[in-house]
């Protein structure tokens, strides 16, 4: 959540990170945000950038600023949540961009699974198992999205590759709201859980090719659900003038 951001469009990136955190419930109503200087330090941006981002978030009605001794920026009550985030993101990207996002992610996730099967130790297996249990327990779309992200990060870490892990973490902000929020029906959710268990079993038994195959199928199943939602959304739009 508070990891450093790349240089490009820093204020926008801070706005996006915080607004998604708020709308997905990572930051809850009335929660106080860290101070401007703490936010600047966490994100690796200047205090001016943070101030700019907070102004924008106030404009969007997501945070409010209180003055005085116990003052600061606080998360406001809001409507929307996971499904609004999914729809908004699916409107921003085209079908081919969505497909490309899944392709890129499969390269990371599939390879993580392949290598994890060879390299995971007892500790890594325990952490992956915990993340599957967290997915099973998750009570809402957002909890599932978090557990899903964690599963993929643990898989990459079990592959013993900091580069893969950083790349997987770096993509969660993009793939999370799209791929991990798209399993809307109970059948889709059961399928996701089943795939996680299959990947875990393959990693645990050292079967890298199977782990990669299931990880690949898992991402493309999520792509298929996201595509279905996206095509409905974009199909309902008025024709774009040209």
């Amino acid at each position, binding site marked *: 959540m508070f990891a450093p951001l790349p240089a490009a469009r820093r204020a926008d990136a801070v706005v996006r990170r915080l607004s998604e955190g708020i709308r997905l419930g990572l930051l809850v109503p009335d929660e106080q945000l860290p101070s401007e200087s703490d936010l600047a330090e966490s994100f690796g941006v200047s205090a001016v950038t943070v101030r700019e981002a907070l102004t924008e978030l106030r404009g969007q009605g997501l945070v409010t600023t209180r003055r005085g001794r116990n003052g600061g920026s606080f998360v406001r009550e809001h409507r929307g949540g996971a499904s609004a985030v999914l729809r908004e993101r699916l409107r921003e990207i085209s079908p081919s961009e969505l497909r490309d996002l899944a392709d890129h992610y499969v390269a990371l996730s599939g390879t993580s699974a392949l290598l994890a099967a060879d390299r995971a*130790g007892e500790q890594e297996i325990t952490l992956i198992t915990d993340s599957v249990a967290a997915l099973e327990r*998750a009570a809402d779309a*957002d*909890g599932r999205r978090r557990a899903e992200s964690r599963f993929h990060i643990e898989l990459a*870490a079990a592959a*013993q590759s900091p580069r893969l892990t950083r790349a997987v973490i770096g993509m969660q902000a993009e793939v999370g709201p799209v791929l991990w929020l798209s399993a809307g029906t109970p059948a889709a959710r059961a399928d996701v859980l089943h795939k996680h268990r299959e990947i875990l079993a393959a990693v645990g038994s050292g079967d890298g090719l199977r782990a990669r195959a299931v990880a690949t199928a898992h991402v493309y199943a999520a792509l298929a659900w996201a595509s279905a939602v996206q095509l409905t959304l974009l199909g309902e739009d008025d024709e774009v003038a040209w």
Partner: protein
Amino acid sequence: MSAVERLAERVSRLCESTFAAVEGLRGVAEQLLLPADGAPVRRADVEPMAAVVRPVLEAEGTPLVGAGLVLAPGVLTDAQHWMEWWHRGPRGDAHVRRLRPVLDPAAENFYDYTVLPWFAIPRETGTRHVTGPYVDWLCTEEYTLTFTVPLRRGREYLGVVGADIVNSWLERRLLPLLHRVGQPAALVNAEGRVVVANHPSLVSGAVTRQADVPALWAGREVDDATLHPLPGLPLGVLVLG
């Protein structure tokens, strides 16, 4: 002195110098956690850790990329879980920043460090531990070794003080010595994971399959492989052939 002995001595020296830095933090942490008047300890009481940790991480040429204090649940009266952990920025950024994981157990993304080996093993064994190498995706974002020392009040476990180094730092310093070992050789941890090796068949980060390392750690003889455990460290030099 044989090449293996020289290597083992070098590893020990590098690890002991890291533990020496951690012991320095322990002295301060104990003063903060065990006040003479026995008063309850709060978050504000352990804040002075920053003043000791930051200079350690900012020191010119230090291999330490992260360090601090991590407390067992219930040690502080105003926080169930707490840590004062600082780290340098990713990939060579010298700016030291505080680690801010989610420490509220009710939160979905709660960072439950109590199950992680760098915290759990010193609690179980009562002694210091070297965890890794592992991908520390929360803090260093690098392939990392974490050195931790338990803090106690009598028999009560209070938590750990510790420090991180990046695996590549150790690799660079050991390769010339490893090279002088005539046979394929590697520094391995207790599960047989390769820290650094002198032969491409021993892949850094992989658990070696060329020899039954757990059996060697248990003191059993294995064909075509010997293990030289390092005193007081969960690391050993594995030599094949």
